[in-house]
């Protein structure tokens, strides 16, 4: 996958481009923007409270709130995302509640697929009952699904987004690769539980700086076992140094998520370090 710079905005924290409302969002340093996961059916998401942050972690339990593929396609056709396509490459993230929904959504997107740099499938969101991470609980069915999607989207750059739970991430990546997919994004949020200061329990997915050593290891293992895969690193990347470490252990591109909650301008520092590193190491 060729990007102006291999620095990607992760699916979710940046929604459908709302950060673009900022007058000075650093688009010039964004190699690709991943849209928030669109699922087959509209999702209202989970009950509040949905987020909390402390001690190096952000925890969220959004629950894939999104308008569903039908409304998404309407809006896409209406040209509402055109401004975003002008700013940068766009990666679409897809999800569903079941085998059938994953297949169906693939068919629905097929006619529009060429607008996207790549299509990422979310097999790792921990905040939904069905789909997301739970889809891989039935391994045989999941493998079948991978082949099925590859058949439907036979020309697209297909990426599976994997977490560290529900199996060994490097084995999962091997399965993805064997099904003829092009890449993986590792990792997603890790299942966590925090108490906020009011003593309320927040059961969600962990992101933020503390994920870095876990994500570094995941990328390292996935690369070792899958030299052929395109790897997008996700998890705890906040600085140029973090990004370089990811490239060193085998990532082809880095992605940033929770970083945006702190300050989107840090993307520029990361992109500059990445350019410098790739300039030097090539």
């Amino acid at each position, binding site marked *: 996958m060729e990007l102006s710079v291999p620095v990607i905005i992760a699916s*979710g*924290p*940046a*929604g*459908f*481009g*709302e*950060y*673009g*409302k*900022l*007058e*000075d969002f650093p688009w010039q340093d964004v190699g690709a923007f991943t849209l*928030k996961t669109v699922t087959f059916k*509209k999702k*209202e*998401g*989970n*009950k*509040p*409270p*949905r*987020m*909390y*942050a402390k001690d*190096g*972690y*952000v925890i*969220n339990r*959004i629950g894939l*709130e*999104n*308008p569903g593929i039908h*409304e*998404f396609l*309407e*809006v896409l056709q*209406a040209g*509402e995302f055109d*401004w*975003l396509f002008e700013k940068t490459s766009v990666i679409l993230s897809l999800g569903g509640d079941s085998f059938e929904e994953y297949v169906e959504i693939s068919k629905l997107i097929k006619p529009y697929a060429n607008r996207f740099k790549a299509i990422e499938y979310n097999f790792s969101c921990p905040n939904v009952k069905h789909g997301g991470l739970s889809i891989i609980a039935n391994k045989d069915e999941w493998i079948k699904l991978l082949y099925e999607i590859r058949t439907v989207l036979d020309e697209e750059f297909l990426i599976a987004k994997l977490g560290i739970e529900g199996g060994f991430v490097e084995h999962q990546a091997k399965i993805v690769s064997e099904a003829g997919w092009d890449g993986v994004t590792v990792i997603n949020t890790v299942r966590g539980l925090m108490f*906020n*200061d009011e003593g309320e329990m927040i059961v969600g997915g962990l992101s*933020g*700086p503390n994920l870095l050593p876990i994500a570094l290891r995941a990328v390292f293992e996935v690369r070792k076992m899958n030299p052929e895969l395109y790897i997008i690193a996700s998890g705890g990347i906040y600085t140029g140094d973090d990004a370089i470490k990811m490239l060193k252990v085998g990532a082809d591109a880095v992605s940033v998520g*929770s970083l*945006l*909650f*702190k*300050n989107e301008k840090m993307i520029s520092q990361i992109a500059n370090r990445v350019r410098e590193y790739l300039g030097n190491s090539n």
Partner: protein
Amino acid sequence: MASFLKIEPGKIKRYFLSKTRVFEITTDTFFVVFEETVDFKPGQFAMVGTETTLTRKPFTLGLWDGRLAISVKVVGEGSRYIVETDKPIEIIAPLGNPFRPPETKGAVLVAPSCVAEGIHLAETFDADLYICSKTPLNAEFLAMVTAELDRVKCVVGDEAFIRLLDEITEKGYPWIFVSGSKKMEEIAYKRIRSKSKEIEVYLSLNEYMGCGIGACKSCAVETVDGIKHVCTDGPVFRGDAVWTTQ
């Protein structure tokens, strides 16, 4: 297509602010005035950056002597940083929807943490301002506010707060705006509603925010019309939209 946000690029700006004065309002709550001002309307907020936290922190905007002001209750790392730092503070603003009361001359009820917003609303809409605090207000600060604005009343303690609610309900305000903790807003709304069905009650809601601009969906609240987002649908909501769900 209502669930997708219409994105108008370039509407939100970034500012680097310098504090000029920090007043103590009451225990743990401070009134922070900046050198600069920013473009905003009453009821809107900013996401305020800190060096010590993973997320920017939402604070409602106010004015003091023509300069930007916020009130900050110190409840954790972020609010402490904002009060204590000597460095420039980076914010993005304006965020959220302006508050538009049906007419002028309502009542504005605020906790000390929302005094900056309260003063601004009271001035803009020619309303009466009630500051409701658990602990006594710093006398100097109160004198300062009173000099700036007549129609200010301050009540201290839970009992006085309840009495005040009954009092203002009887006064026949067309609308009452309440901004403070979740608890305080709930008490206020329910008490006023139990005595009067006429008064329009507005609440400025609090939810943990990741982005403040509609991207992350963290600031969800349950309303009678389903999930809404404080940062893009609010921050001010009509009380009936929120509490009749319970």
